[in-house]
């Protein structure tokens, strides 16, 4: 092989590697979903373990790829002579069986320790308990101790153990907040558990990470990590009814429309006493109804909309919550998320006489945005 041909092959290859390497360095790990920006002990341990194995892998990579490149270059054919016809070397075989075994043991020890650290639950007495139930295509959150029900937004205090009981109502989903912890799957008939703990207040992104059907790509949620005091305030807020509406206002008209068209699936008054168990019962009933006729049922289990006005996003973590996006959603959910059960089943999209006018849509949206606890505590966190 001539030097010229060598140049034609090796250098483009080498350069492309460099190119890819440098470009990739420029990409960075600054996504709101980055696993490298660990904001809690679980994510931190998982990241540290990964980096430990990664750097060992880099060493192996350099040695192996280096040997390949070196051998291919150094021993390229120069003449017709046969090289030494070596069949093997038992010492080498032993060496490169034993050495990797040692590396494996070195990796396995912190790994197994990490498994037990992250997959054993803390004491329930001192933890926040949240039941998270996966639905096609939204996340339900129930707080059994505090008796709060909400959807698509998980509120927890900083620096406190949270045990998330994870299940699904329909198909397999997965519960994942990359900056806080690795994922656990949401499976019908199974109750899985995930321990999370967030170090710093802020807003974090979560997403479903198990293929669950047509809108899998658009099943997300937000996690709001409060300071300890703000979390107490949030809990109280969830018990506080919204401000009374002026009769005849858009919001009040919207409320009537909501009751007539939306409330059979969406509950929005879970701040009331005893509402917690009632809502669980409602959701079960709605699910049973839907199961009876999966194609044409007019009832589906739907996100709880209590204090919807305070939510950061709509559609399960998809768009900012404001009049424009909300109106677009109500007008036609397909604008934001194709495949929703709301579009397929709600009477306002499927029966001949229950369509909403754009004025009505506007009123409903304004009504929903008005649903905030009467004593409003303005909490501003930065997107993390």
């Amino acid at each position, binding site marked *: 092989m001539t030097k010229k041909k060598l140049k034609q092959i090796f250098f483009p290859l080498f350069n492309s590697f460099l190119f890819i390497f440098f470009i990739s360095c420029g990409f960075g790990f600054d996504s709101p979903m980055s696993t490298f920006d660990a904001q809690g002990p679980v994510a931190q341990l998982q990241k540290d373990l990964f980096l430990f194995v990664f750097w060992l892998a880099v060493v192996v990579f350099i040695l192996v790829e280096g040997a390949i490149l070196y051998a291919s270059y150094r021993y390229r054919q120069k003449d017709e002579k046969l090289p030494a016809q070596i069949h093997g070397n038992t010492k080498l075989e032993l060496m490169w069986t034993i050495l990797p075994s040692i590396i494996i043991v070195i990796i396995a020890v912190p790994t197994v320790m990490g498994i037990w650290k992250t997959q054993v639950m803390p004491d329930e007495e001192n933890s926040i308990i949240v039941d998270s139930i996966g639905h096609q295509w939204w996340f339900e959150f129930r707080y059994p101790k505090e008796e709060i029900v909400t959807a698509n937004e998980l509120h927890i205090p900083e620096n406190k153990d949270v045990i998330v009981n994870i299940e699904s109502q329909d198909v397999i989903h997965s519960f994942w907040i990359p900056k806080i912890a690795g994922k656990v799957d949401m499976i019908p*008939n*199974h*109750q*899985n558990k995930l321990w999370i703990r967030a170090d710093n207040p802020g807003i974090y992104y979560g997403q479903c990470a198990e293929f669950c059907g047509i809108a899998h790509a658009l099943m997300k949620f937000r996690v709001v990590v409060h300071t300890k005091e703000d979390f107490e305030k949030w809990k109280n807020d969830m018990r506080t009814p919204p401000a009374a509406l002026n009769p005849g206002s858009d919001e009040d008209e919207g409320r009537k429309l909501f009751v007539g068209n939306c409330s059979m699936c969406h509950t929005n008054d879970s701040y009331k006493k005893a509402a917690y168990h009632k809502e669980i019962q409602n959701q079960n009933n709605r699910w049973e109804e839907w199961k009876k006729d999966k194609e044409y049922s007019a009832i589906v289990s739907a996100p709880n909309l209590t204090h919807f006005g305070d939510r950061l996003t709509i559609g399960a973590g998809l768009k900012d919550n404001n009049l424009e996006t909300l109106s677009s959603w109500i007008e036609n959910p397909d604008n934001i998320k194709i495949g929703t059960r709301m579009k397929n089943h709600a009477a306002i999209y499927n029966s001949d006489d229950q369509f909403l006018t754009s004025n009505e849509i506007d009123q409903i949206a304004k009504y929903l945005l008005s649903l905030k606890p009467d004593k409003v505590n303005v909490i501003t966190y930065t997107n993390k």
Partner: protein
Amino acid sequence: MSTNVTIQHGEEINNSTGVSTKKLLMWTFLGSDVMFFGTFIATFMAYRNKSLNGPYPEDTLNIPITSVSTFVLLMSSLGIVLALHYLKEAKMGLAKFWLLLVIIMGIIFIGFQVYEFSHFANMGMTPQVNLFGSTFFTLTSLHGAHVSLGILWLIFLLINEHRGNLNSGNAIDLEIAGLYWHFVDIVWIVIFALLYLITANDGVPPGSIPWIGGH
């Protein structure tokens, strides 16, 4: 292996191992079939006692009757051994007799299964009704399909025996069918032991063995 088997052209005893190629194929296939039945049996065992509603095994399975059909199938394995023995000895009358008997016993076994299935259907036990129905019916039907294919194969061999095309010279063709038949029999013994003898007598209230986490 009988020493008075003449080696026929195409018998291929001079291959790398000295084992008949056809026989090797059958053994390998049976190894594969073990994984097939094994997975169905594992499914049954995983779902044992997990049905949320009846009919339950103790209501429907009839051990005495199934013991009879199991016995018949077991005896048919003996029958095929005898059929092969007589074929190798070129005692064609006895060979044909025993082979016919095996076929009849196989048909009796299938007959028992057909009776059992229709009886279950009358009791409301169907593949759709619960986990027990689903696992029981698929496992036993697929086994029954294997037996039925075996019966067809044996009928085919009996016809060949009758015409003189199956004789002591190519007895290996019956031997291979015998291997398959014994396999099907052994699978049935496992099924009978696990599905009938053990599960029907579980005596455990259904649903009382919880899933991880409970439901």
